[in-house]
Each structure stands twice: as C-alpha cells, then as structure tokens.
C-alpha cells in the first residue's frame, strides 16, 4: 500500500530466531498502540533467522509494516539497517522481548515533538521473569538485563550513568544516528565477535554519544513504559556473569576507542583493589571482581586487534 504522507514514527523490531510466543506478545503490544496506525510504520528486521520470518509472521494488520531481511548477523547491522530503511524522523527500537504499554508510541512522539532537544531517550522496563532470578540479583544488578525502575525524569547533555538510555524501547532521532548507519562498523563487530563470541552492545552507547555530540539531551523518563520478558536461559548465573563481563569489556573497549588511546589500561591501584576484593569480598563480590579483571584482559586484547585491523 502506498502512502503519500511520511509516517511520524518508525518502530524497528530487530530479531534473530525469536522465541515465538514472546514475538507474538511483542506484536500484540504493538497492535494495541493508541497511536493511529497511519502515523507510524513498522519494520520487522529479520537478522537471518533460520526460518525466515517473512514466511511465518503476518504483518497484514498494519498498513505500513514491512519485512526487512538483514543477512549480516549482529545487533549493529540489524539496527543500522533499520535506520537506513526508516521513513520517519523519530525511531523507536523494540527488542523481540519488549511488550510496549499501549500509550508508548503516542507518548514517545509527543515527547519528541514537544522537546526538540531530546536526542535519545528510554523509559521504565518492568521485568516479567519466566523463573525467579537468583536472590542476590534482584535490585541493583537488574540493569544488566535492561530492567529499570524510574521514579523521575533523568536527562543530561553529557554522559552520565544515571541518564544513559537503554536499548530496549529506545527512542532516537533518525538524523542523528544516520551517519553511524552509513558508516561501516562491520570491521569492529567482526573483530570483537569473532574473537570472543559475544556481541559488543555498542550500538546503544553509540546512539547516545551521537545525540550528545549533536548537543542534544539523552535520558530516561518514567512516562515511557514497557514490559521486558525474560526467559529462563537468561537467568542462570553463568549467563548473568558472562553478560556482566561482556558489558564491562565492551564499555572499556568503546571508551578506549572514543578516547583514541593507545591501549585499554588499568592503574596499579585499581588492579590492587580488584585483587583485594577477589580475596576478601563475599561470593558475589569475588565473582564480580574476577569478571572485571577478565573483562579488562578481553577489552585490552580486542582493542589491540582492532588497532591492528584499522591501521
């Protein structure tokens, strides 16, 4: 169906081999949006799923929905492809386990239209756990898996952990992130993913930095709400500590890359403190210190390889 007018908002749902019942709930969440369908488009970016989603997912309910196939596997290629395909100036990223509240798109659009200075924003992510997570994990560590409970708006025009938007449900201005999508990031991805078998979650951080570089706000607001479905495989300790390690490693890697430093470094004092924690903390504290040290080694190695590749 051809539309003469551009949509106001593009929803990018990037997925690879999704859990079917989760994807159905995500799509139902989108179907229930209060924003009229004519005002937003839906891009279902299939990141080379083994059974192509075009064959199994019916998007006939939405007149502005499209299947997009991105053959290059990885979060960055899929998210960047969505940017290139999007028709609207405001984009909302929805993961294949994010069920948006019915007013999510309407609120996001209103926020961005009323505040031209907002560049990159996310909201509250309420968890729906398939099984109970480990007791120690509840609370302060839940942010690892994109669970955030907000009570007030948190915005800044500089980088700060409190205002750092989260990738799940992220709303972003397309004009800001388009240069990133047009630049080839494949080498960075390949370098990290090949060597360590993990994806560097750099796309969210890069979107935030792009907004900050453009002089805009990044932040989080409780007025945007979604439900984050968290399956049992994502709640065992092995996965959680691995995720923590990857997050720290990629954060260090990205910081070094942005600072154009010669290497990822750790001061002797910092190393000494980590060793002390390794010796004297409780079980979780010891494990976290261990993962931070491992993350440092991973990031240092990855950064060296990246520099060799980019020379």
């Amino acid at each position, binding site marked *: 169906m051809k539309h003469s007018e551009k949509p106001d908002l593009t929803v990018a749902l990037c997925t690879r081999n999704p859990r079917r019942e989760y994807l159905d709930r995500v799509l139902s969440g989108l179907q229930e949006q209060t924003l009229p369908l004519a005002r937003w488009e839906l891009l279902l970016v299939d990141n080379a799923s083994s059974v192509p989603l075009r064959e199994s997912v019916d998007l006939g309910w939405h007149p502005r929905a499209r299947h997009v196939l991105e053959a290059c596997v990885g979060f960055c290629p899929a998210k960047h492809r969505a940017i290139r395909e999007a028709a609207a100036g405001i984009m909302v990223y929805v993961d294949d386990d994010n069920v948006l509240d019915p007013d999510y798109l309407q609120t996001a659009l209103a926020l961005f239209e009323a505040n031209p200075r907002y560049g990159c924003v996310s909201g509250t992510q309420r968890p729906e756990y398939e099984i109970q997570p480990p007791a120690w994990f509840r609370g302060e560590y839940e942010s690892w898996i994109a669970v955030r409970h907000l009570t*007030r*708006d*948190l*915005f*800044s*025009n*500089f980088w*700060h952990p*409190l*205002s750092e938007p989260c990738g799940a449900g992220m709303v972003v201005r397309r004009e800001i992130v388009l240069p990133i999508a047009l630049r080839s990031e494949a080498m960075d991805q390949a370098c990290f993913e090949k060597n360590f078998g993990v994806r560097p979650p750099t796309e969210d951080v890069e979107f935030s930095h792009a907004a900050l570089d453009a002089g805009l706000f990044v932040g989080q607001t409780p007025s945007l709400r979604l439900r984050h479905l968290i399956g049992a495989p994502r709640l065992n300790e092995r996965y959680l500590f691995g995720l923590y390690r990857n997050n720290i490693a990629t954060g260090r890697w990205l910081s070094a890359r942005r600072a154009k430093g010669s290497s990822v470094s750790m001061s002797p004092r910092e190393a000494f403190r980590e060793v002390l924690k390794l010796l*004297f903390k409780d079980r979780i504290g010891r494990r976290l210190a261990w993962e931070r040290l491992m993350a440092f080694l991973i990031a240092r190695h990855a950064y060296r390889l990246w520099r060799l590749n980019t020379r």
Partner: protein
Amino acid sequence: MNMYSLSVILCSHNPRPDYLQRTLDGLRNQDLSLDCWELILVDSASSPNLEGSLHLTWHPHLKVIRNDKPGLTLARLSGISHAESDLLVFVDDDNVLSSVYLSRALEISEKHPFLGAWGGSVIPVYDTPPAPWLKEFEHVLSCGINIRDSWSNLPTISEPWVIGAGLVIRKSVSLTWAENVQKSPVRMNLDRQGTSLMGAGDLDIVMTACDMGLGRGAFKDLTLDHLIPPSRCTEEYIERLLCMNTASIEILKQARGLPMTQPPEQRSLRSLVQNLLLGVRRLRMGRIARMKDRAYRKGLALAHGTVSSKTS
C-alpha cells in the same frame, strides 16, 4: 506583572571594603539597563552597619536589608522574600561579575526555559601570586572554569557543578527552597554562619531545581572574578575549608536521603590493615597530599558525628 526582569541579591557579612567596592563596581558596569533590575543588599549582621558606609545612590532600584543574626542562609532567605522579579542572581561580596553577566543570565533564562538554576565560570583573582600547590584547591575556593555548556536534572551533588557565586535561579525554585529549608534545621545550617565554613547551601538550592523537574546548568560564557585574599591561601585555611566542605556535602547528602560516603571502620582487623596501609601511603605522600587526605578524613568523621548526634 513584575517590575523588574532580574533581582540581584548581594549578601555580605563584615566584607573587606575594597572587595565590596569592586563587587559593586562590577554591578554598576553591567550592560543591562539599571531599570531592568533591582539590587538587594543584605547586610548579614555586619559591624558596623554597611548602609552608612556605602554610596549606592547610582542604583535607582535599591533595597538594603539588615539581618541582626548572621548566616548566609538567613541572608538569602531575606533577599528572596524582598525580590520582585522572576529571576534571582546571588552575588557574594567578593564576586566581580563580567559586564555582560546579567544580560547573559536573562538570555539563558529565555533560551533554556527548562532550567531552574544555573551558573558560570568562576575565575580566581589573587591579591598576591598564589603558591603553585593552591592550583589543585581552586575548586575548594569555589572557583572553576566551564569548558562547555552543560546541563542536567540528575539528583546528584555535582553534575554539573553549580555553586553559589553568581548563582541564577528562578523565583519558583527560590520559594520552594525557602519553604523547605525553613522546615529543616539541618538544611538551615548548611551554609556559612559567622566564622563557620560550612558551605553546601548553594548545592541544596541547585538540587531543589532538579527536585522540581527543572534542570541545572553550567555555562562557559557566564563569567565572574572571585577575589581571594592572602589569608585564604594558607595551608591551614585550605585544610579547614576542605574539611568543612566535605562535612557539609555529606550532611547535605544525608538530609536529602542520598548515600553518604562511609568513614573507615573502627576497631576491626580490616581497619587496622587499612590504617597501616594509610600510614605507609602518607609516608610516601607530599605535605600537601597529606593535608588533603587529613582534611577529607576529618570532614567525613565530622559529618558522621554530626549526623549520629542529631539522630540519637
């Protein structure tokens, strides 16, 4: 409708006459027309009275208020209650505003309606060349240069760092702060009183803006000179100031329900090891680093002592 665009509140307690004169000259040189702003001079229990010793007839909209009880918070509250505009600028008696300060503050107010409190770069101006070590402590003396415009509404103490010297706030923020601070004895005592060097009341005002959903900002082209006499450049004074700054920030954190920095544990194997390591570290430190470390620890202990005595 308000009569003025802006109210300048100048709080002073036993000022150095030449510094106060330079502060007033700075105000007189503003490029904003005198009819657009009022000057409120709060004499905070100075001896002798300031009113008699100053020539202030150059300003057509002047109010001089006398507080018999000293204290910066009380002085600010008096100034707020007499202000007749929607924008308030706090100036200390040793701050010389750049000639465009007030007009720039007004511009920011119009351009950034989401901000509730903002400030600028505070440049230290010494009577005598300072010792090289003092450079490290300029932030303790309320000085700092902003290299870019930054703003946020984060409920933190220092991001971005906006202080009382040249602080610009909206009337709504000042009224909310005044109402809250009068209900809380702890917050009432967060600022200078006589010879006490407590000094976190300004941060409390700035954080009030964030509580109200407004932002706070630090701007690079809003500048003022902070006049610093030799008596404030001694190691002894800096140590005392650093100690009181640390203590008042910790007390502010407690009053606002933010996590306080914990002092080292007492009487445990861990504290023994820590003290041994600290002793070794101090031996290797220079004199100034030792002073800084000592002041910080004293400040923490003082804050925790004050808080526990208030709660018990």
